[in-house]
């Protein structure tokens, strides 16, 4: 019990410190932090509409966080989640548009297409690492740009005739939920939350309960010992990237099939893939931690939208708070030092 508590202390202190420093910044810029945070909280859970929108925001954060965390746990740094997310988005939408099928086949097929596209995109850095020891960070980061421009090209030239976005997906491939919409005052909350929760369970199950997870983690910790024990290091590196990429692709698919219903030409990255790194870090790379961190991140992002409306505080303040939280999490050594000081003082 106390072990679990201490695991939580450091992120919790980081969050509090981030909020406190954020308040100081608001004060310094001449805003009222209490009103600011009040409106933010209102924007997260103020009424059922806001709750629905918050949940919708959280979905891709959970999946992107899982993608990064899964790779981390197996010794890899998948910084290409952003690119895998973008290709997953497009692939899911493509299937959603191109086919005319009953819902029971069409929707799973579209979701699957997103996962497969993300997995294939992540297969490239995995394969190159396994085969030629090319560092996955370099390859996957470059593939982010490739993904961005290739999908833009496909949307403009293949899926449409020089338009900026695709047509809407068929209803049979949509994750939109009249039920969720009706109980949340017509927010865009969709079935993606169920997919995200299933993925959380899948990640936990693979890593903690299966022999595949045992191998993946072993290879991540010590390749030499894994080889000695008869595991295939190369196979596991590729598999880890592929699973990670599938989660990332699903994050994109949720946006494409749920929130938006189409894929648009992007001027730049969505940022969700990179935020996934922060979510994974804050969540200590565990499945449940990722959920908690995504709740916080998604909540802050959703609540931020309400701040300028109610109090005139620019929503960028929330970006600063998020950045501060990440900063404090990353400097967890500093936090632990403070915590130790604090404990001594109490004694």
């Amino acid at each position, binding site marked *: 019990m106390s072990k679990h508590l201490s695991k939580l202390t450091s992120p919790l202190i980081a969050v509090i410190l981030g909020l406190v420093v954020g308040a100081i910044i608001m004060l310094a810029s001449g805003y009222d932090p209490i009103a600011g945070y009040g409106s933010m909280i209102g924007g997260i859970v103020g009424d059922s509409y806001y709750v629905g929108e918050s949940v919708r925001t959280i979905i891709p954060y959970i999946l992107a966080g899982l993608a990064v965390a899964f790779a981390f746990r197996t010794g890899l740094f998948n910084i290409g989640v952003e690119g895998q997310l973008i290709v997953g988005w497009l692939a899911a939408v493509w299937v959603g548009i191109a086919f005319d099928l009953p819902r029971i086949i069409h929707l799973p097929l579209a979701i699957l297409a997103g996962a497969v596209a993300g997995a294939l995109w992540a297969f490239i850095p995995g394969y190159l690492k396994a085969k030629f020891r090319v560092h996955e960070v370099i390859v996957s980061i470059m593939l982010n740009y490739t993904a961005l421009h290739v999908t833009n090209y496909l949307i403009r030239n293949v899926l449409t005739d020089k338009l900026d976005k695709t047509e809407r997906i068929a209803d049979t491939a949509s994750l939109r939920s009249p039920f969720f919409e009706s109980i949340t005052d017509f927010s865009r909350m969709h079935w993606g939350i169920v997919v995200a929760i299933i993925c959380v369970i899948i990640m936990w199950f693979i890593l903690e309960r*299966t022999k595949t*997870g*045992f191998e993946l983690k072993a290879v991540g*910790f010590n390749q030499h010992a894994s080889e*000695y024990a*008869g595991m295939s290091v190369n196979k596991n590196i590729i598999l880890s990237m592929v699973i990670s990429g599938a989660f990332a692709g699903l994050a994109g698919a949720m946006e494409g099939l749920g929130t938006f219903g189409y894929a648009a030409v992007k001027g730049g990255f969505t940022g969700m893939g990179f935020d996934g790194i922060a979510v994974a870090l804050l969540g200590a790379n565990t499945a449940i931690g990722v959920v908690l961190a995504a709740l916080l991140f998604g909540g802050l992002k959703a609540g931020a939208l309400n701040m300028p409306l109610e109090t005139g505080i620019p929503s960028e303040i929330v970006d600063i708070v998020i950045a501060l939280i990440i900063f404090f999490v990353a400097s967890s050594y500093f936090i632990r030092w403070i915590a130790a000081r604090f404990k001594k003082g109490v004694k």
Partner: protein
Amino acid sequence: MEYVIEMLNIRKEFPGIVANDNVTLQVKKGEIHALLGENGAGKSTLMNVLFGLYQPEQGEIRVNGSPVKITSPNIANDLGIGMVHQHFMLVDPFTVTENIILGKETSKAGKIDLKEASEEVRKLSEQYQLSVDPYAKISDISIGMQQRVEILKTLYRGAEILIFDEPTAVLTPQEIKELIFIMKALIKEGKSIILITHKLKEIMEVCDRVTVIRKGQGIGTVNVNETNPNELASLMVGREVLFKTEKTAASPTDVVLEVRELEVKDARGVSAVKNLDLTVRAGEIVGIAGVDGNGQSELIEALAGLRKSTTGSIKLNGKEIRNLKPRKITEAGVGHIPEDRHKHGLVLDYSVGENIVLQTYYQKPFSKAGILNSKKIFEKARSLIKSYDVRTPSEYTPARALSGGNQQKAIIGREVDRNPDLLIAAQPTRGLDVGAIEFIHKRLIEQRDAGKAVLLISFELEEIMNVSDKIAVIYEGEIVAIVNPKETTEQELGLLMAGSKRTEAGGKQHV
């Protein structure tokens, strides 16, 4: 006589364990004082307390009679306490001088005067007869030399009391002789030395007094000239220790391992093993004797499937296993206690239990249809921990937290438990204390007596002579002689290992 260092009734706790309990260590000026204990007995903890890395819960430290509080290594340095670490803290691309002055640079107008510093290093080196070249790069000098640089580093900082942490673990026999000479020279110059070790031979040779710790408890201090290795060993382990491994004559039967004309290339593409023939039969222990770097590592890796061999044949029970995947070789009946337990033997971040099923996790009953059965895994772990006396808080403890000897016992338990026809033991006792060594030798002989084939690779001649039924001497990747341990001497083996062929037999022999 006055004490330079007194550590009185030191107690140091870590969550869940008491690492030091009521330990007293008093070092006289000008003596070499040994701190003796098994792996994990608490020697390093005590020294880290002295060096300011840990704060004791109870007890007092006095330097030259006056009580002090050592809260950081800097304070320890100021008090004249210097530590020669087991794992050197040197910057490889820097020169000797640069390493020595690191953190203590004297500069003129922001520029370090390396010339003057080098001169000072040279003088110190001469004074203590260390013969270190101040301008040599660390990456270019031998391990023994690097250790002297560490010694110089402490002297340059004005150390009067030098702590040596297992200094001989990494040295060759020749280098050990030189180190002993250096330690004696340091004493002549008025320094005092604390020597952390578990090697009784060294204590008998150089030390004046010895303080023994067992399981965190201070057992007492004895004068070296009033004791003997047997007494020290039993003080350290807490029971009688047998130095000569007891065994009956071997009764070899069928050929288990047959290596013919094997060639293995090393990482640079040079033949490390060439034209090597070796036979190991069921019911015998074949020891491979040789100086480090004569192809032993490459041979083992080739046998275990971790390195591809270029030509030749490796047969296990008559079946060719050369260049098969490690898993196929394991399943064919090979157990392997690897040379480097941290690199190959264990996933240090995995629990002891998970490490125990490292090669068998995919088999029943540990997993079924791809799902692990942790109940069965940890059940197995518990039974092996018990039968191999692995001292660990629990089967869920990360392997990293165990002492070297207990890590090794876990590996041996795992390998022997799979009941392999051939057990390869590469340096199975490196860095271990006498109690653990005795345990491991017994297990190897048990395997032999159970009709298994055992291949032992070691750089310790004593171990080879003691345990093997047959000794194969390896030199430059070839087996140059096969000798009977009962009919040979350490001198003869030493000559063979150095490349002089046996006079009466001559030439290469088949086993």
